[in-house]
């Protein structure tokens, strides 16, 4: 189980618990504004872009190559960008804070 905190563009902070699946799915289940996951989680649409809190970056790790190609030229990219559909939920993610990019 992992507790994950989302901070939306309107500065709402929502902490939710996930057990399985990926972070995008968890966000959609919990109606996190700005995470749509339109492609269903296959790294095709970038509608689940988040900025990882820098202090949590080591827990999360770097994007895979397909994902970093999608992120590199995204207008909202930062050094801590990830596509949340590519982040598998595990205990390693417990306590992380994610800022929703859109």
């Amino acid at each position, binding site marked *: 189980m992992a507790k994950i905190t989302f901070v939306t563009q309107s500065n709402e902070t929502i902490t939710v618990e996930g057990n399985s699946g990926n972070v995008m799915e968890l966000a959609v289940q919990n109606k996190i504004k700005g995470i*749509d996951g*339109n492609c269903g989680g296959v*790294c095709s*649409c970038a509608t689940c872009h988040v900025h990882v809190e820098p202090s949590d970056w080591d827990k999360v790790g770097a994007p895979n190559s397909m*994902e970093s190609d*999608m992120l590199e*030229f995204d207008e909202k990219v930062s050094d801590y960008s990830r596509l949340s559909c590519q982040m598998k939920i595990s205990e390693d993610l417990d306590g992380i804070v994610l800022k929703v990019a859109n």
Partner: protein
Amino acid sequence: MSDSSSLNKTCVVIGASHAGVNFAFTLRREGWEGAIILFDSDPEIPYHRPPLSKAYLSAEDNTQLDLLFPEQNYASENIILNLGKSVVSIDKESKYIVLSDKSKQSYDKLVIATGARPFIPPINGIKTANNLFPMRTFADTVNIQNAMKNSEKKRVVIIGGGYIGLETAASLKKTGANVVVLEREERVLERVTAPEMSFFFNKLHKENNVDLLTNKNVIEIKTVKGINEVFCDDNTSYFADLIVVGVGIKVNTELATKAGLEIENGIKVDETAKTSDVDIYAIGDCTYHFNPHYNRFIRLESVQNAVDQAKVAASAICGNEVVYNAIPWFWSDQYDVKLQMVGLSQGYNEVIQRVEEENEKCQSVWYFKDDELLAVDAVNNGKAYVLGTRFIKGKQQLDKGKLKDTKIPFKPTSFLKD
């Protein structure tokens, strides 16, 4: 919504797929306090459709559908899902809809999200063929997989070399089928891509031992003891234990037509997704709508359009009018190839193909009309896709010579005209 004017009102949505469901959740979020009632003839909890012909069809264990939202979210948002129920008519004067069991449901606002259905061409013998299915719903995947399981030889003929046909071919090949694709035109994906892309996918399928045949006009299907034989007009024929038909769609406009709404290549809507009736909106695949970027009316079959138009309609109904102005995007997964498309290539007069040096399976096709970039098809190339999107949105002028030069890497400024 700033006042409580929606409290005692009812919004009815016909169609509970990508458009209808995203509309319902967005409407609630935008502040609609009244009832939201969805109807769909499909009995399943609304699910993602694109994976059906891709990962889903080739997966071992298909008991779990990829839901758009978990079932409990409908209850928690007070969205009523009426599944397995067909709407037969709309009375726009008295503002109610009629279901197939003759019951009525009144509405204050109505949203038509009826989408489209597979077109089954009038081929001799098609109605009596054994194990012949389209590929659009969960039920279709179940039928196709059951036919596969019950067949020893697993001979599959796919009629139509469009995206549905090619994705289905790739997925069934993975599960051990012998696949023949019969395309009527001289190349696959003829309607939607440049010859360069058709060539790429042709090669990809051949490498994966799918028999991809073009100039094959199917004229008859004969079925003897459950075995189909598919005949083409060049006197060839192919045996099939299973036939999948993917030759395009028919837009579900019948309800709207009968109700007297304006129809033109789909249900005609304005920039807020409103139909010719002030209280009826239409969203998704069934609409014929204006695209400001391309300055023309279009109809799209895509998740992007379904979701984006749903949001526009929800905002409009809640009094926050947003104009629909999106650049269309699409994707397709076949074997180890991810194709991402952005923009509309129709009307192009020049194509630039870029095959990256380190990997021929990483490439992109750029569609221009004179100096205007219209669309990009990116194969295993997220950078080309994202940059293409930016260039199209910004109407940026590109130096085609630089774009062709694979020594110049992808960067936001590296292809811009000096």
